[in-house]
Each structure stands twice: as structure tokens, then as C-alpha cells.
């Protein structure tokens, strides 16, 4: 019997990684949910917007590093982040001008916009690969860990270690802060409310004196900021690779939808649901149980509900289950 070790093993392999991954998805999902909430379409280009923002940030980071500028224990990329956001904002505003605005004027159906965003995705996809290539890039510097597994073991004398990465901590904190800020912005500020009004009834918003172009611009700038932040934090934690960022799109959408499209809290909740359902259902409880039960009861098998082959299948099955009971997601999302 060794409850502490069991707990630490669980924290180290399930809770901390799940929490961090959930926060990463949530940050991405916040951007998706914002676009859906205000502009009413599922933006397939979000993954590549994240890639673009991260790419710019990386380029700036390199410049800063070569100029000898750093952020001490924190990654240099955090200094470069504002530049990334600015460039991405410029890009998406330009895209809106050149592409989306036309369809907005036409009052095109949301599915048309989805397919249009698919086109934008292809283009951005190409641009990113043109500029920075397809290779994997690690750009994290500074202290990688708050505490490593080894240090933890030495500190506590336990058999199991607990590792927490700096980026994991930053991501979780950022996700929560951004969620609260976004919720506050949309529900309490004048601009935020005008954005919701615009999404609800565009013609009536016009009749209330709301400037649609401004609403759209603010939405895109926020989306760019969210996408870049999400991308950079993810890239710092894992690494940057254009293709993976594209692949991220799926779990991000899953998070946004299961949380309820258009709801910032939903995006966070959805992120955690997706992450934890991936991590927990296929978890082999052997290790934890071995600590908990007397030695001769220790399980032989892995005590695993499903093998990890079915990780995605299981996490999707959980999403579907959630939706069957809450047809518009955990937090009563919108549907167009």
C-alpha cells in the first residue's frame, strides 16, 4: 500500500499531461469558437493560422536570439509573441478583405464559408511551407522544467517522479486567463456585446448603429491573437511542424463543438474533455493499482479498458456520448 506513490504516478502520467494538453486544445478551441460565435462559420484555416503565427514568432525569436536578447528562465519566444500576433492579425485582416468580406456581403450560407475557409487553409498551408519549410523546429529555450521527475524523486524520496514543464504551467494559466477575459469581454463590454449582436442579427445590428466592419476586424484580431498564442505555446511545449498544426485542427474542433460552439467556457471544458478522454480511457491502471493493493494482489495484466490503438476512437466515442445527451454541447452552444 502506497497511496502517495500511486497518486504521484497518476498525476505524472495522467493528470498533468491531460491538463496541459487540454489547455493547449482549449486555447485553439477558443479561437475557433470565437469565429463561429461572431462570424458564424467553422474556420478550417484556424490550424494554419496557428502555424503562420507560430512561424513568424519563431523567425522573430531567432532574430532576438542572435541579437542576444532573452527572457531569462522563460522562453525567448514569449518576447517575440506580440510580433507574431501583429503579423498574423495583418494576415487575417487581409484575408478577410480579399476573401471573406465578399461572401459576407452576399449573405452566403455557412457551408459555403466553410469551404472557402478550406481554400484559405490550402493557401496559408502553402505560404507557411514556402517560408519556413516542412521540417520540425524546436524553438524552446529557457528553463524547460519547473520540476523534473528526477528532482521530484530526490526531493520527496518517493519512487515515482512528477515532472512539470514550464510551458505546461504557462499554457494552463494562459488558457484560463484568456477564457475569463474573453467571457468578460463578450458579455460585459460594449464592443463585446456589439459583436454578439452582430452575430445574432446582422441587419438589426446595423439599425442599432453598430459598425459591422469594426466588429469583424476586432473578431479577426482576437482570433489571430488566440491562434498565435495557442500555436506558440503548443510549439514551445512540443515542437513546431506545419503538418502537426494542421492535424491539431481535428481535436480543436472536437473541443469547441463538444463544449458548445460560441461559448468560451465551453471551449475550455471541451478541451479538457477531449484531452482527458484520450488519456484516461486507455490508461493502464496496473502501475497505480500495484501501489495500492497488497503485493500478492498486484495485477498481472495491464488493467486497461482499451488498448491505445483505440485512443482516438474512444475519445470520439465519448464526444458522441456527450452530444447524445447534450445535443448542443456542454454549454448550450449555437448552431446555424
Amino acid at each position, binding site marked *: 500500500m502506497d497511496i502517495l506513490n500511486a497518486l504521484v504516478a497518476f498525476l505524472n502520467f495522467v493528470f498533468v499531461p491531460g491538463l496541459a494538453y487540454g489547455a493547449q486544445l482549449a486555447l485553439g478551441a477558443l479561437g475557433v469558437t470565437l469565429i463561429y460565435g461572431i462570424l458564424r462559420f467553422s474556420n478550417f484555416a484556424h490550424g494554419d493560422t496557428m502555424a503562420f503565427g507560430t512561424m513568424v514568432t519563431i523567425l522573430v525569436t531567432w532574430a532576438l536570439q542572435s541579437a542576444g536578447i532573452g527572457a531569462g528562465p522563460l522562453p525567448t519566444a514569449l518576447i517575440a509573441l506580440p510580433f507574431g500576433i501583429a503579423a498574423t492579425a495583418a494576415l487575417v485582416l487581409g484575408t478577410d478583405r480579399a476573401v471573406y468580406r465578399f461572401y459576407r456581403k452576399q449573405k452566403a450560407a455557412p457551408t459555403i464559408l466553410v469551404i472557402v475557409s478550406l481554400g484559405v487553409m490550402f493557401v496559408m498551408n502553402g505560404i507557411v511551407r514556402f517560408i519556413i519549410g516542412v521540417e520540425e523546429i524546436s524553438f524552446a529555450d529557457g528553463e524547460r522544467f519547473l520540476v523534473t521527475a528526477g528532482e521530484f524523486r530526490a526531493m520527496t524520496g518517493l519512487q515515482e517522479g512528477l515532472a512539470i514543464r514550464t510551458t505546461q504551467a504557462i499554457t494552463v494559466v494562459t488558457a484560463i486567463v484568456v477564457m475569463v477575459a474573453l467571457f468578460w469581454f463578450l458579455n460585459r463590454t460594449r464592443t463585446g456585446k456589439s459583436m454578439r449582436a452582430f452575430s445574432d442579427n446582422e441587419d438589426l445590428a446595423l439599425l442599432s448603429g453598430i459598425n459591422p466592419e469594426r466588429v469583424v476586424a476586432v473578431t479577426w484580431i482576437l482570433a489571430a491573437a488566440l491562434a498565435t498564442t495557442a500555436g506558440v505555446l503548443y510549439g514551445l511545449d512540443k515542437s513546431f*511542424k506545419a503538418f*502537426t498544426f494542421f492535424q*491539431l485542427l481535428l481535436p480543436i474542433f472536437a473541443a469547441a463543438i463538444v463544449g458548445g460552439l460560441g461559448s468560451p467556457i465551453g471551449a475550455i471544458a471541451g478541451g479538457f474533455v477531449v484531452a482527458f478522454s484520450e488519456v484516461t480511457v486507455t490508461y493502464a491502471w496496473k502501475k497505480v493499482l500495484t501501489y495500492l493493493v497488497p503485493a500478492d494482489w498486484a495485477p498481472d495484466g495491464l488493467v486497461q479498458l482499451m488498448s491505445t*490503438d483505440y485512443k*482516438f476512437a474512444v475519445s470520439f466515442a465519448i464526444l458522441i456520448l456527450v452530444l447524445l445527451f447534450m445535443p448542443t454541447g456542454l454549454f448550450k452552444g449555437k448552431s446555424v
Partner: protein
Amino acid sequence: EDVKIGIILGFTGPLESITPSMAAGAELAINEVNAAGTLLDGSKVTAVRGDSTCVDAAAATAAAERLVTSDKVVAIFGADCSGVTGAILQAVSRPNGIVQISPSSTSPALSTVEDDGLFFRTAPSDARQGEVIAEVLKDRAISSVAITFTNNDYGKGLAEAIQTAFEAAGGKVTISAAHEDGKADYSAEVAALAAAGGEVLVVAGYVDQGGKGVIQAAVDTGAFSTFLLPDGMYGESLVQAIGSAIDGSFGTMPGTYSDGAAKIVEMAKAAGFDGTSTYVGESYDAASLMLLAMQAAGSSASADFKGKIEEVANAPGEKIYPGDLAKAIELIKAGTDIDYVGATNVELIGPGESAGSFREYTIKDGQFVTDRFR
């Protein structure tokens, strides 16, 4: 005469990050031959690239169809992923009687495929490597391992081979779990692997793909500290990304007694790309074999040179290493038998299969230190 060779790899799609180096590897051989200028009495070889997308069989065959029927390539180099390789073989190479050599498709199913003697590959067989790895583990007195494999024919085939061989040798495999490439997070896989335990984690994946992600997560959480790295996991980028944490890990990769592998890395460096990237050696060898076989047949028509490929690749004969292509052409012209060894010690057995011998290495201070050859 202008000899065109079609290079069909997944330039876009899941393997897009390793394909540029593979293509460069093939083109390295082609440039070398062109520089010599002696192939088939001064023919110039040009490479025409096509995108296999790795996953879209229809797009891949369309690209191959275009290269063969429109660009008139005389042979196809590729593809990379076994699925599209098989599709191209059936839909394009066989109907048009074109030789196809894949540098990286390792699916056992391709061994028995109906190919009219047109299909070859330079990537070593999974079964053989499984045996080698089991030996390595045994020699290092390791009795239990966990295995994770990339969920495709290569990964699964290799994992099964390792497991069979290792268990036959009395070892214990605690878990053999798949991971998907290109995914965002591998916590779940690492959690399961860690729970199962084992002295070493065998990672039958790709270095630029999920394999690296799994190692990273395993190192970060302290789940494993020693890894066994089969051929797909060999690459500088692994050390660069993970650093000293994987010191002490070891692996196997196709390798020769000679310094063919080292040579190709040098040559690649001079040409401006990473020669340690996965399948670069195999790519160079595949292209070289194609060209040397043409020379041996004295013709660039597939029907003529398809029979010469095995002859060129195998003993007996004078051994040919990377960088020796000009010499090889001269030797063939002179009627001397050659044995192409190349970067990966190519030896073709059975129906166009590579036998492969392996190099065992350990990572020490961020360097790949060769222990021995098997």
C-alpha cells in the same frame, strides 16, 4: 539520349518532412552519374518529381500515370508509403512494363505481390531486423521491453517481428502499443507504456514523426530513460531535439562493415542536405541500382534492365560504395562484374528484396557511436 526517371514521394502529406531528403538522396546519385557523363555513352539523366501524397492512392497513380505516359520516364523511383507504392505498381508500372524501386516500403505483403519482375526495394525486410534487434537485446542482457510502433505496415510488421524474435529468445514484451503519426499529443501512449514498464522502450516509428513525440513525452515524464531505436528512428534530429537525455540509448540501422553510411552523410553535407535523415541511404542506393542496371543492360528500357538489377546489386564482383558510381560505370563497360554495396549494404534476395545487414550503435554524448555490425 535523355534518360528520365520519375521520383514519386509524398512531398505533401504525413511524410512531407522526410521526403525532401529522400528525393535529394536519389538526385545525389543521378547528379553523380551526370557529372561522370559516361552513362550509356553520354546520356543525361533527369529526375522528374511527382507527389504521391503518401496517403492518396488515386492522386499518386494519377501522378505516376502522368510521369510515365506524358513525361515518358523510363523507371519509377518510389513511392514511399507502402499503400501508394502498391497502387502505383498495379495501376501504372505493371501495365506499362516500367521498373519501380521503392526506397522505403517495407510491407511484407509487397514480397509476394504479382510484379512481373519489375518491382524492387532497398529498404531491409522487417523480419530480418526483428531478429537483429532481439539479438542486440539479448546481448545487452535485457529481459523485458515495451514496444510502441507507428500504426502502419512498417511499424506493425517490425513490432511483430521484434516481439516474435525476442519472445523466442526468452525475453518478455510487456506491451506492444501503436501510436499514430502526426498527432498532437502522446501522453496516453506514454502513460500506458509506463504502466506496463520494461527496461527499454522499443520505438518502431519514424524519427521525424510520432516516434520522436513518444520519446520526448517518455523522457519528460521520466517513464523510460533508455530507448531502442530501429532504422526509422535513426537521425541527428533526434539528438538535437531531445539532447543528453537519450544518451545510452541504442539502435540498429542498415549498415555495412565499410564506411558507406558515413560516406553518404559527407556527400549529403556537401550537397547541402541532411544525410542522416531516414531513408536517405536507401534512396541513394535505389537510384544508383537503377542507373547501374541500365548501364549493365546497355539500355534504358525497363524490359532490358529489369533483369540486371539483382546482378548489379549482389556479389560477386568489385564492391561499389557511394561516390563510386563513375568507377562502377567504367567497370561495367569494361565487362567487370560489380557488387553494389552502397550506403546500406544492399543485397537483394528473393523477389527483389533487400537482405540488409545492420549496424548497432549507442548514443554517447550526443554522438552515434558504432558498436558493431551484425
